[in-house]
């Protein structure tokens, strides 16, 4: 059974608090490429009026199948892409203004860093971008390197790091400005079980420190463990929003079951089962 309207569950204790991250009727259209399916010139709609609020101190899981619009949402929030219509803001400031990114940390899905720099140089570079005063800069670099356990490799070029170490330097750069909001794009993607556990622990520690975490993931078990609320996106629309327990229908025991129901996977499967004898016959 799919959902035609989003499940509207709000955090009652957050109703009067100003959201840290919010989107309002966010719509993103991409120009259709010539020669695309059906030779249609109609633009591809990646987001269809997404409205979402994330509040201080919560861990928010942003879920959806591939192509649902999660990365597009993050791209708008980080100013990589402009929305066709609607509003998006971080700390009440429009995301088109660079100052809105002063208090955020961003961890991309894969490690995209200057491989010719050492960890120390990379962190120093990002610290300068955040205008961290020189007096505090070196201390801050030492702290984050200690936090991700990379002190021993601080003066080695990043190109010599293992995948786990590269992910850790990614976390270090996301924490260099002591952010109030962390945006993590599939932070456990491609990591081994130990790496995944470390990221999970990190998110939990950040939550204890009162940080807000907004992250996308395909690891539903992990989301279930660490998230206060989740938003499920499918085909550019927010299909469900709320705490995990409130999204579960009677008889459902895991977020995975709820997720599959909400994105309409079962319905597709049934259709496929009904169709298959016919398609075999034809």
């Amino acid at each position: 059974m799919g959902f035609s309207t989003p499940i509207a569950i709000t955090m009652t204790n957050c109703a009067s608090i100003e959201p840290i991250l919010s989107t309002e009727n966010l719509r993103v259209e991409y120009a259709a490429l010539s020669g695309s399916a059906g030779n249609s010139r109609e633009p591809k709609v990646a987001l269809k009026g997404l409205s979402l609020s994330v509040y201080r101190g919560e861990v928010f899981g942003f879920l959806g199948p591939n192509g649902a619009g999660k990365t597009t949402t993050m791209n708008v929030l980080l100013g990589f892409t402009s929305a066709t219509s609607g509003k998006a803001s971080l700390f009440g400031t429009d995301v088109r203004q660079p100052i809105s990114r002063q208090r955020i940390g961003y961890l991309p899905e894969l490690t995209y860093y200057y491989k010719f720099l050492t960890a120390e140089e990379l962190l120093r570079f990002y610290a300068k971008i955040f205008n961290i005063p020189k007096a505090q800069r070196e201390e801050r670099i030492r702290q984050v390197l200690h936090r991700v356990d990379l002190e021993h490799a601080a003066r080695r070029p990043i190109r010599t790091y293992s995948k786990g170490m590269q992910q850790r330097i990614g976390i270090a750069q996301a924490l260099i400005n002591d952010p109030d909001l962390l945006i993590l794009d599939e932070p456990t993607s491609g990591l081994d079980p130990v790496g995944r556990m470390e990221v999970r622990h990190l998110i939990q520690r950040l939550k204890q420190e009162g940080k807000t975490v907004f992250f996308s993931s395909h690891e539903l078990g992990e989301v279930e463990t660490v998230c206060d609320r989740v938003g499920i996106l499918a085909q550019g629309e927010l299909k469900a929003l709320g705490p995990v327990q409130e999204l579960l229908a009677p008889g459902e025991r895991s977020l995975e079951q709820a997720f599959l129901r909400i994105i309409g996977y079962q319905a597709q499967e049934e259709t496929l089962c009904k169709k298959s004898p016919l398609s075999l016959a034809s």
Partner: protein
Amino acid sequence: MQKISAVAGVVILEMIRRKDVYVLFFLTALITLVLGSVDLFGDAKIARYLKEVCLTLMWMSSVIIAVFTAARQIPVERESRTLFPLLAKPITRSEVMLGKFLGCWLACCISLAAFYLLFALISGIREQHWPLANYFQAFWLHCLFSGIVVALTLLGSVWFTAVSSNATIVLSCVVGMLLLGRHLHKVAVKAGGIAGHFLDGLYFSLPHLEWFDVRDLIIHNWPRMDWTIVGQDTLYACAYAGCFLALACWRFRRQPIH
């Protein structure tokens, strides 16, 4: 300004750590050293000719360094996706572009300073003549020329996605402007009509890169130029580099990154 200088610092560090630039740099330095130090038959004409060859080589190397350093900045950042964590920080795309320009230009100036220093040393020791003002004027105008070339290449890099196509187009334009720019007006007068107007338009709108080429000051030991002319050339270069950079920033700001 701290953000711009931070980006510029990374550009310079990258250039220092990339090995391919060293090949060109040391090759040019070696040829300069050899040609600048030989004294064939004690003939002044031959010595001047060798000086011209050295300086031409330095000009060619500087154009290649400027174009290939600047052409790869934005496209390679896009391709390796290092642009994502950078733009997720509180920095504007214009600041990124200006940082790239500053880094590339300073890298070119450092290479040029090394070339000119080496050439001046060898030439000065051989001729026992030290026209320092001439060398400084030639070096400074050469730096200004590099600034225009770097800005033009950065502009090309936000229009053409492939590094090779941008580098080829910019190299062709720069060589064309250097060699043919000064003759455009004469050709325009001869051509007349619409073609003449078009060529005249090009003559007055394109930067006259040949104005920055004062190799003859060093080759023939001519007296130094009036400093006002150097000042005017500086303003001229700033205006063109500024226009190219403004266009590059405008284009870069409008491009979605995904």
